[in-house]
């Protein structure tokens, strides 16, 4: 039974608005903090109920707090996302038309790549084929930094990947725009960029790296869940969230 919206919910929502995305542990701590601040009752097991109360009120405004998995750590995250496109949201972008074009090109590169990433060199080169006002090299670099800072892209050793926030928010868009190219994880059924692929040419299923870790945990001989061929890739370790207890 969901509760009435109270100050604790509002405080949580305001923090979500400022940050965009928060990990599950952070969300738990934040809810506890918000409830305490408003002297509200708090049930640590009912995380999803708390968020559902907020979501019911956000729905008429085409906003939701949605849950999603990080492709790096496999941990769950909560992101505040926008659900509909109207004239207003089109006016709202922090990014100029040509910056958005470059972002779309970056997304093209990432979706079509094998490993779900795009090198800074490739992105800089793609700026040459822009149809809107071309971006200079320095402007492109500056834009990429902004995108990372605003949590749309992640960068590691010169390679750019879509951030968890980006994937959660853009999932419907990506599924529509790239429906032929986009990879889907066989285990969790969400879209997948950083994933392992079955080498059997007749099979070729994809599994997220963290999903691989969880699926094959403790198994002696990993086999493809679809075609039963030997799974040739290195099985990553399951990453536990940072320990709660700190003495």
């Amino acid at each position: 039974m969901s509760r009435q919206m109270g100050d604790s919910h509002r405080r949580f929502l305001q923090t979500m608005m400022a940050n965009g995305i928060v990990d599950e542990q952070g969300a738990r701590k934040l809810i506890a903090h918000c409830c305490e601040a408003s002297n509200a009752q708090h049930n640590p097991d009912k995380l999803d109920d708390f968020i559902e109360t907020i979501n019911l009120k956000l729905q008429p405004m085409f906003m939701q707090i949605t849950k999603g998995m990080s492709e790096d750590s496999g941990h769950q995250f909560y992101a505040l996302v926008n659900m509909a496109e109207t004239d207003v949201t089109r006016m709202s972008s922090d990014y100029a038309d040509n910056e958005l074009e470059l972002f779309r090109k970056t997304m093209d590169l990432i979706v079509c790549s094998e490993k779900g990433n795009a090198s800074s060199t490739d992105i800089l080169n793609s700026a040459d084929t822009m149809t809107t006002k071309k971006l200079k090299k320095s402007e492109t670099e500056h834009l990429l930094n902004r995108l990372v800072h605003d949590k749309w892209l992640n960068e590691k050793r010169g390679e750019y990947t879509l951030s968890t926030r980006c994937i959660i928010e853009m999932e419907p868009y990506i599924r529509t725009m790239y429906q032929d190219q986009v990879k889907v994880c066989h285990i969790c059924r969400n879209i997948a960029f950083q994933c392992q692929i079955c080498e059997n040419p007749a099979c070729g299923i994809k599994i997220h790296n963290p999903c691989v870790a969880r699926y094959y945990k403790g198994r002696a001989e990993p086999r493809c869940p679809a075609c039963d061929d030997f799974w040739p890739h290195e099985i990553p370790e399951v990453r536990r969230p940072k320990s709660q207890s700190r003495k």
Partner: protein
Amino acid sequence: MTQRKRMSNTQSSSQSKRASGPAATQEEEDDQTFTQPSTTQVQRGLEKLTPAQVDQKTAEVVQFFLVKDQKKIPVRRADLVKHVVKEYRNIYPEIMKRAARIFDQVFGLKMIEIDAKNHMYILINKLETVEGASPIANPTNPKMGLLFVILSVIFMKGGVVGENLIWKTLKNLKVDVGERHEEFGDVKKVVTDEFVRQR
């Protein structure tokens, strides 16, 4: 179902409004042609529309406000009517009333009019600040620091201060207006352009 792209195309019309001169007077004209509808007019207007339509329009107004608030730019009534409310202007007061209620109940924010003459609105927080740190670190904006230094100078000088005193103060803090600052870029531009626009 329409899919939303978060960073969808910018409609630069609201940005171009920021330029002074002819654009500003156009805005004033827009606002002057807008007269507040009477209560009976609002009633009649509401009867002609479905609740869903009114809710949708209210939602758009809320989104518009939130977006402007994120950039710390006040909302002009003229902009709001022209770009969002549009043909629903006859029920404008009702939409504003509902939007204010949503801000209050859902977000814990208050919609207030900061300029009664030009009809400009901002959102302020209703919730009190909490003792003790929030578990989530809020993203800090270094420009805030700059802004506060300037505001404190103005405040201490009784509300008005010459440009030169501000540049001098900043220079003492190692922010040289003449040179390009590594964090703020063109300092003079940030102060005279951005901060003034954000009122």
